[in-house]
């Protein structure tokens, strides 16, 4: 193995990772025989430098045959329902239609038009963005911070702390929401009790339209940062310590090391966590459903909660399907944006 480590030669360390991780003799041989770039792509999981291989005729049919069961399932349980709800979103299917399907009217894009004119929808969209854009980065920052702490050499009882921080993620959301409702209680809640000591007057956490969403964000961050933390820890552990040693020898301080070594190498992990967290947060539902029922003054009604109410409380299925599609488009755009941002950075 090479002992010199130049920061400009990007591939040498990656080659070493592969060799080091797969510590088996045949893997040494294979890695040595391949081009460094191929190993690099193998290591980062992007095999776009795939060698061209001739596929014998007949294999194509066999491949389709093997894929068929999965494709049929995806078609029946994914594409068909999506298609059906797209059709549904162009009708006024409702409670009357359950009794007499003949009373359904085809309304074209009217549901979408009505949706875009309803202040409740825009408020729900605003609430959802508020939740995702404040809660998302907060969750990622907090989980990265705890991951860095837990990954530090000096920290002891790592397993213990990891478990502690992960517990909120595996507890039942509904039970947790009920407990947090008590914590937020204006008169008897633990938060206001604590704030009272530092002279801050009681906050009406769930009753004040301005505080209700921050209260929900706080709980959601607490609930979900443990999962992201675990993924970040895994990502951090995949960064070879030699890089830090080298950076240190070159005179980089802890902050510099974080921005020049940790963050770039965490790139794919960060993208994954970012996308998953964002998709999850755009689908905010259970927290407001249990804690505030969307109130006060609809300040915590999310798009999914609105969809649920329209669809399963009032049985306006057509309208609810339209909401679902708008949400789908919003999430799709947000995900594409995130991929684009990530691409620009690397």
């Amino acid at each position, binding site marked *: 193995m090479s002992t010199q480590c130049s920061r400009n030669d990007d591939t040498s360390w990656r080659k070493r990772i592969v060799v080091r991780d797969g510590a088996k003799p045949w893997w040494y041989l294979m890695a040595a025989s391949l081009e460094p770039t191929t190993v690099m792509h193998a290591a980062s999981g992007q095999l776009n430098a795939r060698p061209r291989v001739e596929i014998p005729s007949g294999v194509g049919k066999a491949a389709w045959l093997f894929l068929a069961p999965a494709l049929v399932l995806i078609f029946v349980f994914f594409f068909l329902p999506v298609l059906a709800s797209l059709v549904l979103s162009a009708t006024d299917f409702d*409670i*009357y239609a359950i*009794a007499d399907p003949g009373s359904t*009217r085809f309304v074209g894009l009217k549901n979408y038009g009505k949706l875009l004119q309803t202040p409740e929808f825009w408020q729900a969209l605003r609430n959802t963005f508020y939740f995702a854009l404040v809660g998302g980065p907060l969750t990622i920052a907090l989980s990265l911070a705890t991951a860095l702490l837990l990954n530090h050499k000096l920290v002891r009882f790592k397993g213990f702390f990891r478990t502690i921080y992960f517990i909120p993620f595996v507890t039942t959301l509904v039970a947790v929401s009920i407990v947090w409702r*008590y914590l937020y209680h204006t008169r*008897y809640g633990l938060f206001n009790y604590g704030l009272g000591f530092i002279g801050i007057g009681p906050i009406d956490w769930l*009753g004040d*339209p301005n505080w209700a969403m921050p209260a929900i964000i706080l709980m959601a961050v607490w609930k979900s940062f443990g999962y992201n933390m675990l993924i970040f820890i895994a990502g951090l552990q995949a960064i070879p310590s030699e890089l830090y040693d080298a950076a240190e020898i070159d005179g980089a301080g802890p902050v510099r090391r974080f921005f020049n070594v940790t963050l770039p190498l965490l790139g794919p992990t960060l993208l994954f966590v970012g996308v998953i967290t964002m998709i999850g947060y755009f689908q905010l539902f259970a927290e407001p459903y249990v804690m505030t029922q969307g*109130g006060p003054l609809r300040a915590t009604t999310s798009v999914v909660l609105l969809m649920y109410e329209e669809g399963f409380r009032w049985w306006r299925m057509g309208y609810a399907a339209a909401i679902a599609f708008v949400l789908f488009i919003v999430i799709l755009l947000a995900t594409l944006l995130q991929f684009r941002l990530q691409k620009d950075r690397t």
Partner: protein
Amino acid sequence: MLLACSDVEAGDEVTLRLWAMGREGEVVSELIPAFEKEHPGINVEVQQIPWTAAHEKLLTAYVGEATPDIAMLGNTWVPEFVALNALAPLDDMVARSKELRRDDFFDGIWKTNVVDGKTYGVPWYVDTRLVYYRSDILARAGYREMPKTWAEWKTAMKRIKAQMSPTQYPMLMPTNEWPQLVGFALETGSPILKDGGRYGAFQDPKFREAFEFYLSFFREGLAPPVSSSQISNLFQEFERGNIAMYISGPWYIGEFRNRLDKSVQDKWMTAPMPGKDGPGAGMAGGSSLSLFAGSEHKEEAWKLIEYLSRPAVQLEFYRLTGDLPPRRSAWADTSLTNNVHARAFRDQLERVVPLPQVPEWEEIATTIYEHGERAIRGVATVDETLAGLDRDVDAMLEKRRYLLAQKDRGT
């Protein structure tokens, strides 16, 4: 066990399926053996459904053609299931019945089961809202009993408020509940909806009067602007005197008796709703027993409804659940006349008014409190609120108007 035995015995036995919700669903099984003894050919299978899942389960059962023979339905649900053509009309059976006399039932309650002139349910128990109050706090303000008119009621509350600390309130009306406001509207005689339930009637002077009365509780600091999810323990607040009055239904009699501390047990009472001038109107709530159109054993199912409606069986039901019976003859029994907290309900039941019978009612009710909440919090004026209510409710009733117009054209 019962089922296992009967399967062996019988050739032409009938099994009835009865669905009931919540506590009633648990308890009704205890009333069934006596019925099965009376009617050896009929078995009853009771299925208990939690309230939260009941509406969805009934709808999915209807779509899947798996409805029971009889179900307990909240009486505001009856019009919705009638709109689905899910229920069988009962008028012929009621007319023929020897046991079940329509005029023995409280009129307002019976009417909740009548849609377009046909009866689709028999009231099983009644629910109306009235005032629970701390008699000692009222006495301290100089009142020996609950005032009977709106004006006196407000004066009493102001006197109570004057003796309280700033965080205590004479009244609690959670902002996310509609029965209080709707109850006031029934008292002013507001129809709530107009033109046969085709449009909202919220800008009507009668609804406005009720709405302004409702709003004044919050504007004058007599009730806190809080929703029910912000009140962690109502019983504690009532016990500590942080709240002196609360509007609720009969199930609170049992709750207050079980949950309030001994020290305040002789310090609370119930009173009929005060009215504009004299005793006020109440909302006709409760649950009914309905027969499903898909049932293959309607005659037998009707026998079960008759049995469960018998005064003696209803009293037994009252003893098991605390639910109040809908028949005047059942109320003559001492177990009810001796209950000091139930008396006010007997009085109120003579003055109950049904809610608008449209399938959209639940949604309309939710919109009413949501708009009300905006006015309470000062986000909207009274004019804006009432106009907004009419606009939103008219939009909800669009499909109903369309279908009614089609029906008119057809006939």
